[in-house]
């Protein structure tokens, strides 16, 4: 699906941040900003909600913990108890290391999976590239054309140091 966007290109991340705050304060909602590196404060400025990833991690980790401990207890003490070195079948301390590792394992991998899903990142995905510089040294701000007045926005962006402002038709899923 194709759409028209007002595209502003910046070369300085401070100017970008500054402008973003201005634009937001004018209640113009920004479609997205593409930067070569995470510009600190930009997400707050754009008012992006806090990521839910940590909760995912916690849930996954907890599951890992329960599965690991449960499984070890079941195999060692219930399913087939075998005398090992005269130790009790249920020797919890011995189960801790693996429980810990499985907790981490599940926590980490689930979080990564969640991250990729949330951002629809997957091998071979065609990226939306407005300007090849956006992964190098250009900071690209995209505002949906029909949600705003092009002239005003252009002026606003220009005076705040956008080196170029243009309207561009972009295929959002190439």
């Amino acid at each position, binding site marked *: 699906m194709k759409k028209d966007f007002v595209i502003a290109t910046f070369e300085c991340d401070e100017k970008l941040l500054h402008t973003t705050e201005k634009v937001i304060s004018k209640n113009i909602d920004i479609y997205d900003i593409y930067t070569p590196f995470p510009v600190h404060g930009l997400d707050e400025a754009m008012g992006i909600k806090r990521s839910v990833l940590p909760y995912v991690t916690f849930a996954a980790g907890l599951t890992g913990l329960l599965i690991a401990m449960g499984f070890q207890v079941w195999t060692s003490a219930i399913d087939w108890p*075998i005398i090992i*070195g*005269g*130790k*009790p079948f249920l020797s919890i301390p011995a189960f801790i290391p693996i429980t810990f590792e499985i907790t981490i394992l599940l926590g980490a991998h689930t979080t990564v999976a969640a991250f990729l899903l949330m951002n629809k990142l997957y091998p071979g995905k065609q990226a939306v590239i407005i300007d090849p510089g956006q992964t190098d040294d250009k900071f690209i701000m995209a505002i949906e054309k029909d949600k705003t007045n092009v002239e005003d926005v252009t002026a606003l962006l220009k005076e705040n140091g956008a080196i170029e402002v243009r309207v561009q038709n972009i295929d959002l899923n190439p």
Partner: protein
Amino acid sequence: MSKIETKGTGPADASKTEGYWQDVENKVLDPEALNKEFPDGEFDSFSVEKSRRSFLKIMGFSVTALPLTGCIKIPVRKAIPYLHKNDTVIPGVANWYASTWKGTPILVKTREGRPIKIEGNDKSSVTMGGVDSQGQASVLSLYDSNRFNGPQMDSKSVEWDQFDKALKADIAKSAEAGKEFYIVTPGLNSPSEISVIEKFSSKFGAKHISYEPSSQYSAAKANEMSFGKLALNEYNFKNANVIVSFEADFLGTWGNNIANTKQYSSRRNPKNAMGMNKHIQIEASMSLTGSNADYRYTRSTEESRNILLSVLKGITGEGSTKVIDTNSDVVSGIVKELKANIGKSLVISGDRDIDAQVIVNKINQALGSYGSTLNVANNKYATVANDADFNSFVTSMNSGEVGVAFFIGTNPVYDYFDSAKVTSGIAKVATSVSFAMSADETSSLCKYVAASNHNYESWSDTQVSGKELSFTQPVIQALFGTRMYPETLLSLMDETGSFHDYIKAFWAKNFFTKQSALATATDFWNKSLHDGVVSLEGLSPKVNTSSFSAKTSASKLASIKYGTGLNIVTYRKSTTKDGDMANNPWLQECPDPITKATWDNYAMVSPAYAKEKGIKSGDVVTVKSATHTVTIPAIVQPGTAKNTIAIAVGYGRKVAGKVAKNLGGNAFGFNSFVHGSIHNTTSFGSITKTGKFKGLAQTQTHHSMEGRDIVRETTFAEYAQNSKSGNEKKAKIVHIYPPHKKDGHQWAMTIDLTTCTGCSSCIISCNAENNVPVVGRQEVANRREMHWMRLDRYYKGDENQPEVMHMPMLCQHCENAPCENVCPVMATVHSSDGLNQQVYNRCVGTRYCANNCPYKVRRFNWFNYDRSDKLSNMVLNPDVSTRSRGIMEKCSMCIQRIQEGKLEAKRERRDLKDGDIKLACQQSCPAEDGIVFGDMNDKDSKISKHIGDDRNYAVLEELNVQPRVTYMTKIRNK
């Protein structure tokens, strides 16, 4: 264990496969061979016929197969084809046959017709169920693929009838020429064999002489001089409170070592009503017996003879004293002890000097020992190996008087001290015949080779003692085209009928009549055959042991010159002995009880002399006497007299199987003929370093306990005061979690360090029972021997006269086994009856268990060890799986025996009785209660008593691994 009486039968198999044991060593050195995942020929169609799996099939057509495999034609009476199944042979169930090995009554365990294990016959009043390491290993020699496959003439294979014809002709020819006819055998104690030889001799006018390289001729001759009877002594250590032994290794290689050990060890038990015996040993080099002595004095041959003289003087006043001051206290000590125990003491000497033996007789006679601790074994059916006879025989051979010479089971070319003379002699004998099992130095020089059977393919009988006879019956069909020598003699006499018939008739005539218990000769025969041993009276008439004078002997002995040079002493290892079984890899790999070295002989040097000359263990040295030279590695051996070099005989075989060939150096040449007998010593010797180094393959290289209380010991005096002595400090054990409950059977073992002599019979018994692989010299040198049972040997005190401790070490079956915790895949776990079990199939080989074993008893299969010799694979115990490479193995407490015992009891609908189950090591132990095994939950079992004993302790108990194998403190009678 059902002992079913049948005539010995079994399959015939003439497989001769390449690649004998020592290939294991080559394998290690040869990466090519290593790459083979499977031994050679594992899959070729023919070899399958010889493999265990299809054994029944072979038995099935064995009769028809015999001619094909080129065996002698046997009357069908003797072969039992499985087409008509023999109801005494049940697949999977062992048959036990009573037989005899070198005078030791034994039981042979056969599975599907294969002899696979030797155990002592506990019916015997003499050996009482003990076997020594040679007996244990003998079954492997049966499957030696180097054996003759039929008779030979001028080293060409022939058929027996052809052989007999030619030999008869030659014998006749020499008779015409008026030449002499000699039959040389070892000292015989077989009634029927002796009678066959007598019969033969009288027919052909042959002279029968007995020869053994390490004979006890001196003792026998001394008896003749003292009491007018050429006969050996029979000892009763049970009655001896004091034993003074000069150079006699009576627990290892001298006399009936098994019977000696049984009796001796019974008096080592501190609880024995007659008290504990006191053992004083005087010897030039450390022997197994010396290592067990309460007082051991390292003295050169000269010194010990002087001590003997002085003791004689001290006891009887006869003779001269030549005491060196340093020994005066030794002498006075001995004299005091002996005088205090009149009639209850025993003086023995291993000295091969006749006069020394006369003196010993005199001392014993003066002490009234005869009839109590020893008597002259005037056995009706015995010939004594006679050094003098053989010496003159060699002379007459060389002077060309001998026309025919039969060498029956003797190999003088190898083991006579003057080998060259025998060689030249045989060359002068027109008709020389060797009755050998496999090619040896003598047979290779003889015109005829009358390939003879292995003991377990033969009929025979033995006079074990003055009161006991023992049977030898074949337990398997002759594997090769061989013939037992009496049968050869019979056929040379044109006798019809086999030796089996002869022996049967002989027994009916001579022994059946001596008893009244059984009515018919057949019953008597069957019973004797079943029991193996028969006790009859009057087999050895008493000899009058009245007083005599030893003056002349004393002065003669005193006159011997020793010179200034080194004194070279030859001795026998308790494993390989005279070298006739040198081709047996079990014996070669069994560490010598003292040096812990395998696969070699070496020159024992005293630490003092080594320091002086800068000799290190492993330095290759050249040992020279006036007449003989060998170049072998040296070993610095504590307890060797300073000016003495001790070398084991039985090595340096030139013509032998792959295992023995060119292993070590031949030391027989150091023997000498002095004062009418062969001596195992020679003076004026020298030793020089060659500069080369040949590391010894030792299983133990650190000999001190580093002050750790591994072997706990005390003296009899202290023990009498406090039965806990030496074992007072017990580790404080804290349990941090409750132990698992112990109901049902709970197996445990105790090992008595006081009675254990370190003879190593248990090691080989274990090898045979559990299919423990042989790894070869190189791998032992790499410290990778596979023995499940080992004997640790520690020294204490002065390195010139060290105290020795032997400690059998095997898996201790810990209740809190450290090995179990660390195995990631549960390949080693604990059984509910308290055994630590190794699951071969599950093992992935991380070796962590071995690292974490404080006793280091776990053994790892570093390679696929060689099993390419199909014939020797016949000895494998089908109840125990062989292990492939990459897995851990260890003592299983003979789990298969425990299982067998339990099933037996179950089948008979009864509870398991204490003593029903005997482990392999326990069974073969010649010491009384050396190893005890049983159910510790059975309160009145022997094991419970031993565990409850104050002497009982666990090695490294402070680790709280709770071993099920515990030890009894060592007590020295001091």
